[in-house]
């Protein structure tokens, strides 16, 4: 998964990530713990998460 520059850092993706693979502080960052399940995308408040590396 990839977080675009539109991220505002609301934390939805971090809260719903089952792999604890997202860090949020101002904006969100996906760490190497990401499994690519895509759950974060459905919860992103502004559509700032895309599939892909």
């Amino acid at each position, binding site marked *: 998964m990839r977080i675009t520059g539109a991220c505002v850092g609301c934390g939805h993706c971090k*809260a719903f990530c089952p792999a604890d693979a997202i860090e949020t502080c*101002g904006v969100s960052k996906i760490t190497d713990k990401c499994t690519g399940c895509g759950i974060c995308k459905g*919860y992103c408040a502004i559509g700032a998460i895309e599939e892909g590396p």
Partner: protein
Amino acid sequence: MKVAVIGAGLGGLLAGAALAKEHDVDVYERLDIYGGRFTNLPYKGFQLSTGALHMIPHGPAGPLARLLKRVGAAVDIVKCVPDGNIMRKDGGQISFYSFRGLLSPAAQAKLPVIMAKMLIQKSGTVADVVLNDPEWLAISDSCCGWALSTLSKDTPAAEASGILRHTIGGGPGKYNTPGVPMGGCGAVADALAGVIESHGGKIHLSSKVDAILVRDGKAAGVTVDGERHEADMVVSDIGHRLTAGMYDAKFSRPEYLAVLQKVKPSAGIKICLAAEEPLIGHPGVLFTPYTQRVNGANEVTHVDPSLAPDGMHLAMTHQAMRSGDVQNEIKLGLQDIRRMFPDKKYSVLMVQSYRDDWPVNRISSGFDLGNLTPVKNLYIVGDGAKGKGYIEVEGVAAGVMNLLDTLKVNA
């Protein structure tokens, strides 16, 4: 009548619940959850929130509580006692109502003039009302930042005057005391969703509205993920600007579009703390006028312990965003927290920022544009269409009540 609601935030859910009793309501939500910035965000055993701080500004007697009751949404809202304290420079607390004791004699002498201006002044900003006095500004910035995510210099005096009248102008028994919804913001969203569904309405999650259909100048439905859904009325909870982008500009008015270019959202940062011991010690608001950035904090687990794991507390700070440098704003907020709670056992759970297309308010408080749009039968609810003189979700409720009055709905 068939009603399409765009967005299942608090405004959309309130409007949907009120209209579902007499009408055929479909709520379309592009996310996988309903509640928008007013629901729970479960994280590490805590119930964080997507936006609001698990607090209803006017508690069990305010507009939101009254509208919830009116539509039949059962939510237990518990008064906060005390309602508000102020953190002194030495870290101790005093009642908000004793704020005068924090002022120098010279600043205290301005009290009669400032209070009179606060209640009657219709023009200018809160900074003008407090005569740009630095001691008063510290307190008014804390209040405006906590309640509205704006600073005194950006908060219209007329809006503050209305809020003050609703908050303390009526004295005890008016609206003054904030309250905590048992179960947090999510309990409110769940109750409203339950009302909508109990009347046969539907909430469609993961359903993005692409466009609003307009026929003969009237809203005629929406397209959702490319599929047309006819409706007699469309209620939008995504703000004026985004809504206007969903229909052909030829149906709008140039002056309306010009206003939309000028309105500004308000931005803020919330920092959620997992506390092994009470940091604040009560469920009311703790205003923090003597920090760099944090405007206030609360610890609602004194009312509802279920919002944190056993033996823990959830404390949340809020600060208006003073610059576009989000990382620096967060850094300064974290520094404040370390100074506010020295020697206490806590950790930072989550830092959440609200800006751009996911702001605190789509339109800063005091500049709300009301429910009407240039398109007949297309109405706006939520932040951006708040009732005048009300804080945040109370304003959302007041805005929905204004719409119900316009539509003559007896929910």
